[in-house]
């Protein structure tokens, strides 16, 4: 049983540190469809192994994500509303996905397109329950420590690597709440990996303040969770990959 806790944080004479606590992180989001398919309960071992062996040279898709943060707020979304192929000759639309957090007020606003609609989830923050582990690794020039949690709705194991030297609670996708900025997120041992490729500490108040107008259906977090739970259950029952139509 845990309780509402207040924690007093004392910084004394940490000059300029407050200024460092804002910036923008560029992440590479890569998704391995083959690994995801191999978790689908309705596929037989034969089918899964065939998928793996046939498509082993074509496993993933990549996109670029941006996280703007300061000590109180964060904003995470696609780098652009449209993705351009590597050779620049194809452009396609990205789903609406804007994750906004206000740590000071304890609120979140999430614009998420899924199941053919755009939803706007406005609710209070619910912090993931993290476990802290001992591994260290270097990501984009920052030494990061490992933490783990899980997503009970999607039954996912979440591994986050947070920077020891950027004491901000922000992070990519739906995750945050660690003693340092999350620079890498790994969902289910590599099904999805979101890795920081660049961390720039600079003033981002303009980007954080900018509000893009996206129409959508306003719902509460509990409704959103229920939508997901129902969809996953239905899709698995219908023997369809639920993650074709929701974010993994």
């Amino acid at each position, binding site marked *: 049983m845990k309780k509402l806790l207040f924690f007093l944080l004392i910084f*004394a*004479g940490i000059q300029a*540190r407050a200024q460092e606590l804002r910036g923008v992180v560029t992440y590479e989001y890569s998704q391995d469809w083959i690994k995801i398919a191999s978790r689908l309960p309705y596929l037989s071992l034969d089918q899964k192994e065939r998928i793996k*062996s046939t498509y*082993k040279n074509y496993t993933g898709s990549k996109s670029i994500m941006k996280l703007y943060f300061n000590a109180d707020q964060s904003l995470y979304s696609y780098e652009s509303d449209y993705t351009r192929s590597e*050779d620049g000759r194809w452009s396609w*639309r990205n789903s609406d996905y804007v994750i906004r957090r206000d740590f000071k007020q304890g609120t979140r606003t999430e614009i998420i397109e899924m199941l*053919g609609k755009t939803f706007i989830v406005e609710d209070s923050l619910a912090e993931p329950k993290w476990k802290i582990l*001992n591994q260290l690794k270097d990501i984009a020039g920052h030494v990061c420590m490992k933490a783990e949690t899980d997503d009970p709705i999607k039954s996912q194991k979440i591994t986050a690597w947070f920077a020891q030297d950027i004491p901000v609670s922000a992070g990519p996708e739906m995750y945050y709440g660690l*003693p340092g900025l999350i620079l890498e997120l790994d969902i289910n041992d590599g099904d999805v990996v979101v890795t920081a490729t660049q961390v720039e500490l600079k003033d981002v108040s303009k980007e954080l303040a900018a509000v893009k107008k996206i129409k959508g259906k306003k719902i509460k977090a509990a409704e959103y969770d229920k939508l997901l739970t129902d969809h996953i259950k239905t899709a698995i029952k219908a023997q369809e990959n639920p993650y074709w139509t929701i974010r993994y």
Partner: protein
Amino acid sequence: MKNLFSLLLLVVCCCTAFAQQSARVTVRGSIVDTASVVMPGATVMLLTPKDSALVSFGRTSDKGTFEFRNMKRGPYILKVSYVGFLPLQKEFTPDAGDITDLGALKIKPIQKELFEVVVKTARAPLSIRGDTIEYNASSFKVPPGSSVEELLRKLPGMQVDQDGNIKAQGQTVQKVTVDGKQFFGADPKLATKNLPAEAISKVQVFNDKTEAAKTTGIDDGKREKTVNLELKESHKKGGFGKVTAGIGTKERAQVRGNYNRFNQKEQFSVLGFANNINQTGLSFDDYQDFRGSQSFNWQDNGDFGFNSGFYYFGGDDGNGIGIPINGGNSSNRGFSRNYAGGGNYNYDTKKTKLSSNYFFNQTGQTFDTDLNKETFLPNGSFLTLEKSNRSTLNNNHRASARFEKNLDSLNTLVIIGNARFNNGTERFSSTQNFFRGMSRETPSSLTEINNRNSFSAFQLASTAIYRHKFRKKGRNFAASLSYNINDTDGSGNQQSNNRYFDDTTSTGPPASFRLNQDNMTSSLRNELKSSLDFIEPLSKTVSWETFYNFSFRTDRVDRDVFDVSDQGRIRNNSLSRYYTNDFTYNRIGTSVRYSNKGLNVSGGLAGMWFNQAGRFAPDQTASTFTSVNRSFFSVVPNVTVYYNMKNRNLNANYNVDVRQPSTADLQPVIDNSNPRFIREGNPNLLPQLTHRVSAGFNTYNPGSFVHFYSNVNFGYNINQIVYNQTVDERLVTTSRPENIDGGKNFGSYLGFGFPLKKTKATLNVYSSLNFGRNPTYINNVLNQTNTNYYNFGLNLDLTPSEKFTLYPNFNWNLTDTRYSVNKTQNLQIYNFRYGGDLNVQMPGGIYFNGRLNYQIYKNEKFGFNQQLPILNLSVYKLFLKDNKAEVRLSAYDVFNKNQGITQQAYQNILQTEQVQTLARYFMLSFTYNVRGLKSQMRRNNGW
């Protein structure tokens, strides 16, 4: 902003029990380094000892102090992290008082070399778990072929002496394990000296209990320095296989099997089958198991540039060089015996991909055919009734290899080679009765045919593609070179007897005409192709492509025909031919492409020049040759639009297809293998151009699962290749390909699908309409055949439970054909299809599958009404561990109605054909699959 104090609100978890008062405690302390210097800004975390769950966190003040207020009383782990220092972990239980002071806690710097090498430089996760240190082996470069010993020498904190003794952090390593298991005996050196370094993914160093403690279960407190080597996935091997054997009534039998071995880099597979149930090729699953990672390769086409004006061969040219796939279905025509076998090897790394395979198959087929054919002429019609038998035996040896190399991040090379050696024999006998008008009373003539043919051929198709990316993003260059060869030798004997009962030119017994000819044909085709392509980005959203295609092809054909009589063989100079044809094709084009915000538009123009230079004579020694020299130039446009929007997309295209006439159509050769239907080639044929416009719109709502597809297309032909017919007094048809303008086609497709009840019932309805007009000359009179095709269908997916599924489908089809040459022959053909697929799971792991395909063919004009209910039933049971085995009893065509009927109306011809084929039989089969089998209750929706 300078803050002395900043308050951070942390909501760890919101729960109720706020009430338990004095259960609160404040924890404080300070962090210092080994020299007792205070450490400001260190991250301090409070975790629960049970599962390391994060309860609270903060940072130390400038005096190195921290304080957690108002914490729930209980045991905690205090964890301290600071860049460059080993994470400190301290377990404590708060004292009785309100404040627990942990005092000054010392954190130790990570050994500099360890930190620099492992954490910073190598970008490798260094794991320090208690006293276990884990190294990521791939981060330490050792020469290829090195042993683990050499790898260990590279690891910071490890020493290996000359004799191979290992020390970790100064202590001697007593034990080396592999994946946690002892490696062949107790000597730690055995593993480190014998295992290759490249097999290792991780090296872990820790203190383990002694073997004695492990076996007795009594911890003697002693610890041994242990090194554990974790093997890479790639060095974990796997193998699997599958075999099916079945035996049935009417001497039906089948056996098929495959075996695969693989690791991360390599895939090896063998496959074979034999059957007489008309399965001539591989199923898609078998094909994927056989070819593995090389099942599908994109970008293997060396013909660059847009489609417009790109010239491809129609007809039979160049087909069949790949491995035969028939989706695992039984052919509905004739009877066949099939044998096949092959092996495939793939090697895949990021830089190099290599694949090679060999595949042999033999197919022996028999067709007993009843043909009922009506031919319309400007002044009447005639009827042909034919009974024929065709038996063929073909052997194919296929070999292919593909090599792909990423020379560096900017340069890629792909080399592909496909070869086929095949030979075959064919025997054909037929009896044809000809009737004038519709009467079937008295035949006007009778033809009996008895032909034998054999051939052997070699084909090779090879392509090399080089792609280069420039440093400027989006600037790309590609070049390709292809060489193809087709060398075929054939020989045959043709015998026929033709009797004309109503021939008025002769008196007395019916005029008769016998034919007995031997022929030998050798043909050699060589083709050299090359393409270049360059793409330049003009801006972020606009790119410009320029391409050039070249092809040069030469055909050399030598055909000798001999009349065989009692006096021996006499060369027939009117049918013998020697000819050469050289085709030169050049195309240069350019296009501009705009891609932005989901809108992708490109438009371009190409100029294509085509030349054909041929010469032919009855024999290569002939003194005079007839020459053909034709060329044409055309400018062809190309436009494509693709717009990707939320839940919908739109596409539109305009292009010009160029179809090169087939070899058979071009060659100045008279094919009289059916003396009542003589095919002449036409060396003057030009390629066919089709201007095609199409547009499509699709929407899909992933929430409601409602989808809608639509497409319209229109094509207009220039120089369409059509087969003009002349029918002489004796009802001998001569068909000759000619170019003609004006043929067109309009088609459309609409599809709509939605769930009636989510996960339980889905309905798909679709309709397609097609209106075509095809001109041909019949006895020098222009005939326009207008074919209107109306199709409507619906599929229902009923999946009410895991134990019962049903997939009914209905299709109604009307073909309305109008002949301008003879309006009285206009007719409508109706095809109806009612089908269903039923799956039931019964108790005891027994499954039932029933499949009905009920086809109705109706043609009122001819009083034709065929009803063909084909019902297949099977019962199967899965057994053994993981359902590795299956036994199945199947009944094919329960009503014994499979008659291989097809009805066609085309050009000036209406025909109904019936081929004897596999009808009712029963089969008992057994399958064993190492990877396990699955009941087929559901249709596969893809994954």
